[in-house]
């Protein structure tokens, strides 16, 4: 991939991820927080791809992004409204 394109993408993704991570901490709704965390993981897997780590990208997408999110969703469901 074009180096400058990669850089631009990295800056964009990185900025988004950092912003999203702060949002996760402060957003009121836990459901949104979980979804946003999943998005951060997904963005990370794109960064992995940009760093030529295909195996890692696949694993992060399937395990880190999907599975972890499912687990947290289950947890939120089971925990109910307890805050």
């Amino acid at each position, binding site marked *: 991939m074009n180096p400058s394109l990669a850089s631009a993408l990295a800056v964009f993704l990185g900025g988004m991820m950092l912003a999203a991570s702060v949002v996760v901490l402060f957003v009121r709704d836990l459901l949104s927080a979980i979804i946003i965390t999943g998005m951060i993981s997904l963005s990370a897997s794109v960064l992995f791809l940009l760093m030529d780590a*295909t*195996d890692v*990208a*696949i*694993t992060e*997408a*399937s*395990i880190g992004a*999907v*599975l972890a999110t*499912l*687990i947290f*969703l*289950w947890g939120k*469901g*089971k925990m109910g409204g307890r805050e």
Partner: protein
Amino acid sequence: MIRTLFVLLVLLVLAAAATSVIPHLKMRTELDGAGLEYARRGLEDTGSINLVTAVIVAYRGLDTLGEVVVLFSAATSVMLILSLFPLGRGPTDPSFIVAHTARVLPAPIMLLAVYFTTHSHLSPGGGFPGGTIMASAFLLVMLGSSSTPAGSKILPALEALSGTTFGLLGLWGTMTLGQFLNNRVIGIGNPGYLVSAGIIPLVSLAIGVKVASEFSGIFAAFRKSGGNR
């Protein structure tokens, strides 16, 4: 609030103190250390085209065994805890859409998973993502049925079988070549073909099945105590 700011301050001081390490982490342009060796001789040593798999399954197979054990422990713990302290409310009837999706999708998903798992030495993928995808197929099956699917009965057996296989494959290496988990106990064959790289495909398959059964076990335990809402 004060706590929030204080903690941030501590973390920033820590980060600032650690910044001196930056000059030591400049971007490399050439490989060095162990990475260089892997790139240089990895194919020759293991017969695996995918060097990451070569490292995971062959060179540092012990780490991977450990990794499998991590999953095993976590899954066993989760199942144990949820069986000791049930959360109530068993599986609910699936909706029409879910039920039908669940009937169609698992087969192609399974195919993808098997490909990932068995071709780990040839292309990206490997036992872990493969196993996870297998588990998601199982999850779909589970979501599509109102009772616990029949498959979950054989899960523990599969788990035990794949785990034991992994262990025994490892001990085979110790017995013949004096090296636990050596992949060259059978010839490494012709790199690039499915049947090559010694026992790497076998180990990957064992890992895949093991991971799949662990995650499926977790899902089943979750499901039993109420499923997703």
